[in-house]
């Protein structure tokens, strides 16, 4: 049974269509919600929490209709919002305990669980310090403790690694991994960092400009991109791309290299014919990033199916790098 489901959900802010007839199914486990900034990720999460009212469509979370019973949803969902949202002059222990009481816990259990949860997220003695003196990473931990303290069945994390240094990001991803594994809490992790999703999630929902590009298990979604090669041929300029295209290869710029799909022998032949130095020719694994960029580019031209095509055994073998 899905932990959350939305059908035909639309939300407009003035002239901006934040979400447009979105259908999403969130299965148990850890699901990544990925998209560029402004894609509609935060709007979708706020609609799931009942903080926003949709223009069309319906959403249900943990079996509750969000529009009919938003308080029942919020009692069982933990939320880590994006950006600053913590009081600076209160200790972490006091604030987390306060939020536990707002989640329905009596005062004494609220304090006890605050101590436990703060320990779990790596805030042990620091919880007695005012939050205003915390680093970004520590503040993210406080937000995670707030999201966990009332023992939710589903966690909605909005950009949980936002603004964190590499070590802090690594720690946060480990925490998310533990929440899913040890704590057995289902998660929806919203981020624009596809690497984070590949690292901790089982499934992914890709959104762009208010629409769902694709959704499903990561191995399947990543496998929808045909494998190719990262190529550095001559200066990788327009002439090179034209020559490769003339040879029947599909090319796309990807950073400093060209991503080429087709036979590597053809790349070699073009290099030999034109006398261009072939500096790089390496197999490129299908990845979420490739899939996302491809689908994002395609969306402008045609409607993109919400469900990914069936994964081939080869694609599944490429798999998500976990």
């Amino acid at each position, binding site marked *: 049974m899905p932990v959350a489901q939305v059908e035909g959900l639309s939300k407009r802010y003035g002239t901006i269509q934040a979400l447009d007839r979105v259908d999403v199914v969130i299965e148990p486990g850890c699901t990544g919600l990925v998209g560029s900034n402004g894609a509609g990720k935060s709007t979708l999460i706020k609609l799931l929490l009942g903080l926003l009212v949709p223009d069309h469509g319906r959403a249900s979370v943990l079996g509750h209709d969000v529009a009919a019973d938003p308080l029942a949803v919020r009692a069982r969902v933990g939320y880590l919002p994006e950006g600053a949202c913590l*009081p600076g002059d*209160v200790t972490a222990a006091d604030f987390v305990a306060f939020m536990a009481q707002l989640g329905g816990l009596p*005062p004494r259990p609220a304090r006890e669980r605050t101590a436990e949860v703060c320990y779990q997220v790596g805030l042990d003695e620091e919880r007695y310090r005012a939050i205003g003196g915390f680093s970004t990473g520590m503040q993210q931990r406080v937000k995670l403790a707030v999201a966990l303290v009332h023992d939710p069945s589903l966690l909605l994390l909005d950009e949980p690694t936002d603004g964190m240094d590499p070590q802090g990001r690594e720690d946060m991803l480990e925490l998310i991994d533990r929440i899913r594994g040890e704590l057995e809490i289902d998660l929806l992790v919203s981020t624009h960092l596809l690497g984070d999703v590949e690292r901790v999630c089982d499934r992914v929902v890709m959104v762009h400009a208010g629409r769902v590009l694709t959704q499903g298990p990561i191995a399947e979604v990543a496998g929808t991109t045909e494998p190719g090669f990262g190529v550095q041929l001559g200066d990788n300029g327009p002439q090179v791309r034209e020559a490769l295209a003339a040879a029947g290869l599909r090319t796309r710029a990807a950073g400093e290299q060209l991503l080429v799909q087709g036979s590597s022998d053809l790349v070699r032949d073009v290099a030999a014919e034109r006398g261009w130095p072939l500096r790089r020719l390496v197999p490129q694994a299908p990845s979420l990033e490739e899939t996302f960029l491809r689908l994002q580019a395609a969306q402008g031209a045609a409607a993109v199916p919400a469900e990914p095509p069936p994964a081939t055994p080869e694609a599944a073998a490429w798999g998500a790098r976990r």
Partner: protein
Amino acid sequence: MSNPAPTAPAGTIYDRGYRHYEGPREGRGRRVRAIVVAGVRRALGLKRNWKTKVIPWGLLVLAFGPVFAFIGVRVLVGEAVGEFLGYGRYLRIVAGLLLLFAATAGPELLCPDRRQNVLALVFTRPVTRLDYLLAKLAALLLVVGLIAVVPLLVLFLGNTLTADSAATYLRENLDDLGRILLAGGALTVFYSVVALAAASLTDRRALATAGLLGVLLGSSALANILFFTTRFDGRRWFALLSLGGAPGRFVDWLFGDGFDPGTLAQQAGITGPAYLAEMGVVVAVAGGVLAWRVLRLRP
């Protein structure tokens, strides 16, 4: 050789792994109460650094100090000092403290939540905006009532216990007890609602405090200027423009202390019920503004 007696274990291993909460979960009332308690603590600067305690505790000392000093004198001298500190006169003084207290505590309760975006977390719990509004109002009513009503109740109790006959004092002055509760309650509601309404209009505490003091004190100055610089029959109604003066005038009327000679209140000749009605209108308007602002809050 006999077996050694079993001994207590040298240590205990505690499992500090995550555990799910399986205890009771409380309802809406307790969640509202949690916001009220947090609000009272915040208004009084409890569990925060010493700078946040200066204003609330300073005003509390000013409100309670004279009462305890007077009771001490009564204990030493007896009923001879009975006229020294009347309830009405004392409440008139306390009204100034109430204004300052509400003007600082009200913004303290509402502004930081919005400025620091804490509502993004609060409203993701099963808490409605109405719950939030009622809890914040209850918190301010409690702390403002602490200054408006409690010192006078302590004074009344002190007067009763230090009287030659406590029963006689209680019987003869029971009306005063009713006046204390009525006047203290009216002032508490007036200052609390108006202060929260001002705080709901901005997320800057200093701006809300300055704005509230400016409107209440400025309206009194305006009423005096209009009354004393104009000459027509209906000018006495300018007294009702003085939003900051209405509570004190109502108190003066209720306790029968009369208005100070030569003042706008004395010359206008408007009685207490009119000032009470004026306070009611102000509370209704301020309450409407407060509800309109808070119930539309978006996290």
